[in-house]
């Protein structure tokens, strides 16, 4: 018997058997539906989380090093950084002078202030003091108006560039350019709106679309500059290896800080890569835990299918006897029942996937960008069939091993 041909016939037989017992098939399938729905939704959510994080992180250039007081990712030894001195604007200037090759050294700092336009107020908005070099160290650009230039910074002008969310929420469709935005107690003239950058808010990180950029000089003057800590974004020259360049930056910073060779760095170097590494590590754990938990529901669904297959084999003992009497080999019987359980699981998987599209839609609306990707659908279908084969194997094996005489006599 050509096996493809035999498989086709067996599939037909399996479908006929399922049609004959629809209600039971649907109930059995339910376990698989829920299992696949859970697995696909977990994977989709993890994917969405990962994508939206990477999208946000991509704003930070891959060729940019950040000199900060503390590392971005700190695992439980926060106290040891407590006594580090702040990074100051003066140090930023020194660093820029000493790092001849750097394309830009951009100091920035942030605080929180309420912002107000007309009668609309938003509290606790991130106010970022930065320079015109922001445009060199970040890939985000204004979609409307302009970013501030060297003159705005030098003259300590009260101009600001607002994030997309601020624009949408406060100005409600009005053109914000040249309007006055109250930041804290001060009036700023809006000169630009940043393009949408995506939110890292899902991870408790900053919402890049809900912030206001002001010239760092104005920032220091109005919101206080003494005792304020800055971050220096250092854009490496084209062609330089970021790792090598990191040593150079560390060296210059140590000179500025006049550190003895036996003293540890009292500053930290951050970069996107380390952020991504840390994120990926966390995501891996989240995904594994998620899959382990949702996998249990799939396992339970599989046990349900196995159970039903045992019932099905017992009920159809006589049928198996007849089939064997007229020439069905063990393999044909095995295939028939394996296909039956696979079809049950595949149908459940397909329904589960269909439902997970709806779940992804809901996640997309409520939480973060998420969509069921083709590879996930492929994996889910594969897993469904695998569950069907694993769950169906022992019952099918038992069926194929039935003694034809006993099976024929079974009533």
């Amino acid at each position, binding site marked *: *018997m050509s096996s493809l041909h*035999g498989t086709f*016939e067996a599939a037909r037989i399996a479908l006929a058997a399922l049609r004959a017992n629809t209600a039971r098939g649907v109930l059995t399938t339910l376990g698989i539906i829920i299992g696949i729905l859970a697995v696909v939704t977990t994977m989709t959510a993890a994917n969405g989380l990962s994508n939206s994080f990477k999208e946000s992180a991509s704003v930070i250039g891959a060729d940019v090093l950040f000199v900060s007081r503390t590392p971005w990712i700190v695992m439980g030894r926060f106290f040891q950084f407590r006594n580090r001195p702040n990074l100051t604007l003066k140090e930023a200037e020194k660093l820029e002078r000493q790092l001849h090759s750097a394309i830009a050294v951009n100091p920035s700092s942030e605080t929180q202030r309420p912002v107000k336009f007309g009668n609309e107020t938003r509290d606790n908005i991130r106010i970022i003091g930065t320079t015109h070099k922001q445009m060199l160290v970040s890939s985000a650009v204004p979609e409307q108006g302009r970013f501030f230039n060297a003159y705005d910074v030098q003259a300590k002008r009260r101009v600001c560039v607002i994030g997309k969310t601020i624009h949408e929420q406060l100005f409600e469709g009005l053109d914000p350019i040249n309007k006055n935005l109250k930041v804290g107690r001060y009036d700023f003239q809006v000169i630009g709106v940043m393009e949408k950058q995506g939110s890292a808010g899902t991870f408790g990180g900053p919402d890049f679309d809900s912030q206001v950029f002001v010239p760092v000089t104005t920032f220091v003057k109005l919101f206080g500059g003494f005792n304020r800590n800055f971050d220096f974004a250092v854009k490496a020259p084209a062609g330089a290896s970021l790792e090598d360049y990191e040593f150079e930056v560390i060296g210059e910073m140590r000179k500025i800080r006049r550190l003895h060779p036996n003293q540890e760095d009292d500053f930290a170097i951050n970069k996107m890569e380390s952020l991504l590494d840390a994120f990926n590590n966390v995501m891996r754990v989240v995904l594994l835990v998620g899959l382990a938990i949702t996998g249990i529901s799939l396992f339970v669904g599989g046990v349900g299918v196995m159970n039903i297959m045992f019932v099905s084999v017992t009920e159809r003992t006589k049928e198996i006897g*007849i089939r064997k*009497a007229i*020439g069905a080999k063990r*393999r044909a019987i095995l295939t028939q029942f394996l296909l039956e359980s696979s079809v049950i699981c595949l149908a459940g998987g397909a329904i589960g996937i269909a439902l997970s599209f709806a779940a992804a839609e809901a996640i997309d609306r409520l939480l973060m960008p998420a969509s069921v990707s083709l590879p996930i659908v492929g994996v889910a279908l594969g897993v469904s069939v695998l569950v069907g084969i694993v769950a169906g194997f022992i019952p099918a094996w038992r069926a194929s091993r039935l003694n034809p*005489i006993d099976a*024929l006599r079974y009533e």
Partner: protein
Amino acid sequence: MALELRDVNKTYEMNHVGVHALRGVSFLLAENEYVAIMGPSGSGKSTLMNIIGCLDVPSSGQYLIDGQDVSTFGEDRLAEVRNSKIGFVFQTFNLLPRADIFHNVELPLIYRGLRPARRRELAMAAIESVGLADRIKHKPNELSGGQRQRVAIARALVNDPSIILADEPTGNLDTATGAEIMAIFDELQAKGNSILLVTHEEDVARHAHRVIRLRDGLVESDAVRREAA
């Protein structure tokens, strides 16, 4: 020669006690023969039928079909032999209840691995030969007992077997219908098929040309019937 049994023994182990169901049965069955096997219950009739039908193998002795010794075959090779050389007709019809008539008759061809077009051709021919061409879409429970047994005969014929093995084929039918079914067997034999009936009814056995009687696992008598000779 259609089939040959040489000193066939069958012993079952029951509660650790050996039960001798067959104790050295030998006979030949020529092509186009029409034989009835008779015997009281416990005579080894069912065991013999299972062995002849390749559902079971002898504990010792040989069983040859078309010159091939099948007594040492494993389960899958026996399935092949059943598929191609044996046509079963059972007392309880043993059709697949959920499948229609066509599919029931087609089934042995599927297990033989034929293509759909060829299957349709052969299955239709077999169904027509038992006069049920207008019923192919019906389920077995929509047919009368006699019609069901005709479907079973069509299924038995469809692979052109070496022997048709009928086990009490009229046991579940009324007298008139039983007679109709026996007429079909007579007709098949006249066309050249070999038929082996297993029965305890003299009326049925009377159709055969030769009667083998079993008792206690042995052939008690093996005689060509006088009317037939």
